[in-house]
């Protein structure tokens, strides 16, 4: 059979990830240090794991309601109010998903019609464009700039809007740049969106990892709630990546439609993960603070390290990435990163993997031990000395 004629052409047109080769190489190495993968290095706090284990001991192994346990949605509602001042009704405005990724996918599938345009600020996480394309929509990439601290400005947004614009993705705090949007930045965005029917997909998975000021959700800006879908989850804030727990919040008219999709595609998020997540929300605020404080210290250390090595490096204010400029090396970001991996066995990701505007930069994840980060800096220094010669 000629499978290229069988498999959906839009799926086939999605390019495979450009960073896979890095991980394949790294896996073959001994003594490699990965500052590549964007995943917390901490294990899920014990009391949360224990709640998951306890649910298994009790035999709670059946499906849950499609949108998730009522108690979980109530706790999510309380959490969003407590931490970000957001008001969402647990019964009608929240759906529990399999990670934030499912929430992003559901939102796009639920909102986009063929030909609709989706504005995606870049450099950003790699999933938005391909997911939009699968829905026959058109991703419109807007390059954010280092001189604007990688924020999306109102002018950049205005210039990208056309009559076909249906959705704006706001991926802040941003992977890979570490940029955040302050209240005044979001107010300017809100002003542009006023009187349009553009829906904002706000991916706030890194919201708890905001080191300068407090995270501001676009949905908390006057006039924005009715047009905003908030994606959040447990992976980054509680070190729960493997539990696959996320959620989507928004106006009930949209959430009820999204829940239909979720019901047919997923049924319900894993039951034991939901029990663990209830425990996280009830008794996990201290864990969030502890993780954040630890990442913040590493952020300062790595930032100082890169600047001492002569890198032009924007001070990331959120997530757990630095995005140093590597243009002074005279190499492309792919060559620079591949050279570093081969010469010194340190994996960082070329900025070009994160869309337009990423070339000339590299993403360095500091969700790793101080020991490894310190050693990686030593190796990067050695590498710089060899390429200068």
């Amino acid at each position, binding site marked *: 059979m000629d499978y290229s004629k069988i498999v959906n052409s839009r799926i086939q047109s999605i390019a495979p*990830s450009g*960073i896979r080769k890095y991980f394949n190489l790294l896996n073959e190495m001994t003594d490699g240090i990965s500052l590549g*993968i964007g*995943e917390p290095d901490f294990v899920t706090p014990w009391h949360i794991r224990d709640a998951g284990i306890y649910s298994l001991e009790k035999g709670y192994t059946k499906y849950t309601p499609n949108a998730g346990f009522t108690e979980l949605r109530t706790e999510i509602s309380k959490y969003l109010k407590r931490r970000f001042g957001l008001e969402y009704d647990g019964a009608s405005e929240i759906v529990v998903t399999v990670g934030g990724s499912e929430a992003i996918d559901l939102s796009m599938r639920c909102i986009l019609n063929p030909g609709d345009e989706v504005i995606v600020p870049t450099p950003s996480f790699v999933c938005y464009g391909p997911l939009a394309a699968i829905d026959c929509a058109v991703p419109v990439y807007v390059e954010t700039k280092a001189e604007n601290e990688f924020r999306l400005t109102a002018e950049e947004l205005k210039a990208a809007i056309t009559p076909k614009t249906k959705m704006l993705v706001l991926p802040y705090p941003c992977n890979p740049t570490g940029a955040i949007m302050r209240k005044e930045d979001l107010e300017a965005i809100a002003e542009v969106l006023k009187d349009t029917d553009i829906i904002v997909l706000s991916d706030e998975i890194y919201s708890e990892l905001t080191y300068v000021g407090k995270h501001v959700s676009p949905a908390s800006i006057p006039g924005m709630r009715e047009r905003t879908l908030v994606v959040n989850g447990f992976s980054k804030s509680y070190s729960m990546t*493997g539990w696959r727990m996320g959620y989507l919040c928004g106006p009930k008219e949209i959430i009820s439609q999204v829940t239909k999709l979720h019901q047919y595609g997923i049924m319900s998020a894993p039951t034991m993960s939901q029990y663990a997540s209830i425990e996280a929300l009830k008794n996990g605020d201290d864990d969030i603070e502890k993780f954040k404080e*630890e990442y913040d*210290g590493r952020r300062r*250390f790595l930032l100082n390290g890169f600047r001492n090595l002569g890198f032009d490096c924007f001070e990331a204010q959120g997530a757990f990435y630095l995005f140093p400029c590597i243009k002074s090396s005279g190499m492309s970001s792919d060559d620079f990163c591949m050279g570093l991996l081969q010469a010194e066995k340190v994996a960082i990701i070329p900025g070009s993997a994160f869309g337009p505007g990423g070339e000339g930069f590299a993403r360095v994840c500091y969700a790793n031990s101080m020991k490894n980060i*310190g050693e990686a800096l030593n190796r990067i220094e050695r590498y710089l000395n060899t390429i200068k010669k």
Partner: protein
Amino acid sequence: MKKLLQLLEEDCAMSTAQLAALADMTEDDAAAAIKKLKDDGVLLGNKAIINWDNSDYEYVTALIEVNVTPQKSDGFDRIAERIYQYDEVESVYLMSGGFDFTVIISGRSLKEVALFVARKLSTIEGVTGTATHFILKKYKEKHLIFETQDQQQERFTFD
């Protein structure tokens, strides 16, 4: 300052630059603070935590409950001093509850530890009784887990 102490207690092998970043201080301030902590007798020393079971060497640790008759003038301190002067003694704590001191002793063999208790510890003036408990297995010390933790087999690779 408390943050710095917590960090040092966690891992004293970190560089001053690392400690300073984690404690949100400048490197100079961190170095000065560490010097002051040493001068003030707050920071006593840095020691490694060793899992002797994983080494080629024999190492026995015992926890000994010690009862004493405190002396009128010096109370417990004088007797504690007589106990802790021995090199074999790793730690001495004054306790509340059913006995007076916890003494932790290490030696090369059970016999060596037992002989120390019988010949030296029990004969100290003021010591009225001992109960020796040998430590059979260490699971965790100072937040470090002794057993090698299995790692998850396969992890995210971004296919």
